[in-house]
């Protein structure tokens, strides 16, 4: 960090997603849940504000009552917690004091609740007793519920944050990001997170510049400070001086012109110089992203992540709820295909009351297909919804986190059960859909030749494959720089997978972030990959790269690349061979 005489501070972090933005800072509450606004209210508004708060509480209570009704009465412990929460909604220390605070401090309900809730939590945090300390969570959950019902109650009015801000947060989970009105945001910076973390994936898909892993941004930035976010080099500048500001405004203009140029051509096919056609597809999470995906020139949806509905509802959705979502998506995409990936999550994220087992290492824990096979009803519900939607549109089924042949066999058994149930229920469905597996666990890459016997296609999920192969947590800023797609060990695993698919004549797709980074494209073409799925914002720049590559040269280069044994040698070789066509990085020294 370098403070200058003018008060300008520069902090270096990790590049989250490329681009530059200049704007005012907006600090997200440290807990990261919501943007909590603070605004004064007049004497005349006090009673209205109190009413708004009371309505929010009663709505939250009603919602909660519904959860209690729906929960299995045999799990008494859960019921106890929920009923305690019910009592807390109107507890004097929260409810009464929030109302008092609204009228004495003359502030909005959200801020009053936040203030009161913090005070209550502080009381419990001081207590030594672990049971009582844990009551902080109860206060948190109840506060969150009221808070979201306050937001919901005035959904339309909240759009007055439309000054287009730069978010400054401790961390942003995909769920947090989904709560924020993203069109109001120019860019964001976080203290935690590394390249390829979920946070950066969110940023990339939204086409907004971001810098992650800053460590000290929250401490140094105040609301409304002027910030420059340089997502390409991973730099945050707080309160820039005139010269810096001028310099960056110029860069911003150039970068936008460059990007606009790419986007104009993005609807054209991706064909190499020597005529090899590549199919570029989009990774999406929300049905709403389809429009952007098509704008960027995606043909198909190569990866539809299905976790959102589960996280959003905070319970397991019903077959019909899932079916409606999938139907909407496949109809929008017709005649093009949608690859639906089944639930890739730890179960406790869906329903915090479901599991009390805390996993020390969730990414190596009961997640994705492992969770689904352990909780068969959840899995079968999803499979049934997918098979039903397959009667309407063009669907491919993708199973995440497969690590051995046995799991595929179990998945097929579950599929048979789902089909049987659908037949019994006389529902319309289509069972003739391609079944694929994610190759994202090293054991799956190593066993790819055997796995190929059982499935119709592979989809290489590089984000996890790299993380597991190199034993790097990509969210840990201390080791994030060691997370390297061009690591020779990673390239060997990918090559093994490609070779196995080719030999068996099954389809192969790459759907990780690796496919969206132009520097990797010569390697992927060299390996013979023609189906790439990525965040749609990356498609224009990748297409541009593809159009400048000769596939025969890429194949030759690949042979050379496989001989190198360090990331440095590989990277330097690619940069040297392709320096004329590698894209503009936004902050190139030559500018």
């Amino acid at each position: 960090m370098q403070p200058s005489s003018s008060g300008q501070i520069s902090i270096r972090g990790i590049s989250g997603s490329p681009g530059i933005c200049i704007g005012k800072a907006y600090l997200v509450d440290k807990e990261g849940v919501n943007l909590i606004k603070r605004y004064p209210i007049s004497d005349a508004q006090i009673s209205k504000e109190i009413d708004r708060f009371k309505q929010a509480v009663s709505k939250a209570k009603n919602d909660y009552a519904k959860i209690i009704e729906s929960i299995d009465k045999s799990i008494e412990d859960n019921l106890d917690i929920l009923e305690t929460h019910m009592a807390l909604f109107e507890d004097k220390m929260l409810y009464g004091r929030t109302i008092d605070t609204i009228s004495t401090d003359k502030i909005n309900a959200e801020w009053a609740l936040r203030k009161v809730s913090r005070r209550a939590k502080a009381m419990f945090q001081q207590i030594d007793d672990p049971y009582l300390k844990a009551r902080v969570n109860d206060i948190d959950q109840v506060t969150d519920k009221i808070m979201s019902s306050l937001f919901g109650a005035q959904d339309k009015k909240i759009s007055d944050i439309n000054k287009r801000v730069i978010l400054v947060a401790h961390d942003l989970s995909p769920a947090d990001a989904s709560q924020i009105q993203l069109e109001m945001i120019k860019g964001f910076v976080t203290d935690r997170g590394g390249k390829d973390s979920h946070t950066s994936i969110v940023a990339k898909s939204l086409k907004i510049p971001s810098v992650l892993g800053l460590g000290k941004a929250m401490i140094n930035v105040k609301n409304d400070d002027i910030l420059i976010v340089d997502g390409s080099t991973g730099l945050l500048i707080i309160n820039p001086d005139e010269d810096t500001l001028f310099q960056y405004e110029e860069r911003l203009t150039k970068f936008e012109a460059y990007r606009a140029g790419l986007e104009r051509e993005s609807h054209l096919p991706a064909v190499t110089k020597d005529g090899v056609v590549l199919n570029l597809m989009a990774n999406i999470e929300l049905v709403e992203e389809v429009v952007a995906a098509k704008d960027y020139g995606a043909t198909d949806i190569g990866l539809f992540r299905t976790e959102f509905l589960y996280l959003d509802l905070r319970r397991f959705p019903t077959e019909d709820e899932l079916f409606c979502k999938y139907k909407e998506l496949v109809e929008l995409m017709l005649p093009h295909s949608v690859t639906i990936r089944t639930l890739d999550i730890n179960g406790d994220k869906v329903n915090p009351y479901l599991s009390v087992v805390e996993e020390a290492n969730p990414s190596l824990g009961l997640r994705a297909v492992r969770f689904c096979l352990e909780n068969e009803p959840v899995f079968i519900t999803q499979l049934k919804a997918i098979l039903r939607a397959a009667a309407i549109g063009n669907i491919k089924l993708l199973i995440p986190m497969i690590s051995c042949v046995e799991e595929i066999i179990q998945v097929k058994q579950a599929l048979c059960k789902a089909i049987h149930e659908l037949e019994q229920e006389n529902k319309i469905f289509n069972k003739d859909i391609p079944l694929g597996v994610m190759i994202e666990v090293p054991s799956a890459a190593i066993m790819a030749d055997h796995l190929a016997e059982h499935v119709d296609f592979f989809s290489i999920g590089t984000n996890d494959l790299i993380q597991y192969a190199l034993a790097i947590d990509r969210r840990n800023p201390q080791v994030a720089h060691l997370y390297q797609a061009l690591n020779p060990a990673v390239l060997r695993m990918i090559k093994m997978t490609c070779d196995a698919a080719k030999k068996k004549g099954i389809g192969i797709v790459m759907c990780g972030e690796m496919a969206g980074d132009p520097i990797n494209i010569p390697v992927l073409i060299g390996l013979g990959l023609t189906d790439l799925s990525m965040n749609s914002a990356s498609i224009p720049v990748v297409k541009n790269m593809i159009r400048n590559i000769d596939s025969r040269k890429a194949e030759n280069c690949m042979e050379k690349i496989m001989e190198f044994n360090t990331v440095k040698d590989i990277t330097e070789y690619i940069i040297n061979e392709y320096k004329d066509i590698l894209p503009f990085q936004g902050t190139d020294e030559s500018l």
Partner: protein
Amino acid sequence: MILKDSITITRGTSVKNELGMHARPASRIAQLAGSARFCIWLHANSTRVDATSTLDILTLCAVKGTQIVVEIENQKDMDVLNQIIDFFETGFGES
């Protein structure tokens, strides 16, 4: 200055159940106290809390054996006082 001259009524009891005064009994006490027409407090470990607030009651950290005093402001809430005392005496209905 006029000093408030209301005369409060108090009764003592203690926490009898194994788990102490945890969230479920605390919210039940708050619920009982909620029907009082005047102020009602619990005292323990030389702290006084509002008996109508679950959270406030929990901050007493009342483990098994803690001496508790229930205080009401007005004679009219005698029945509420008695119900709360009974609830303590029966070990919150837990074994």
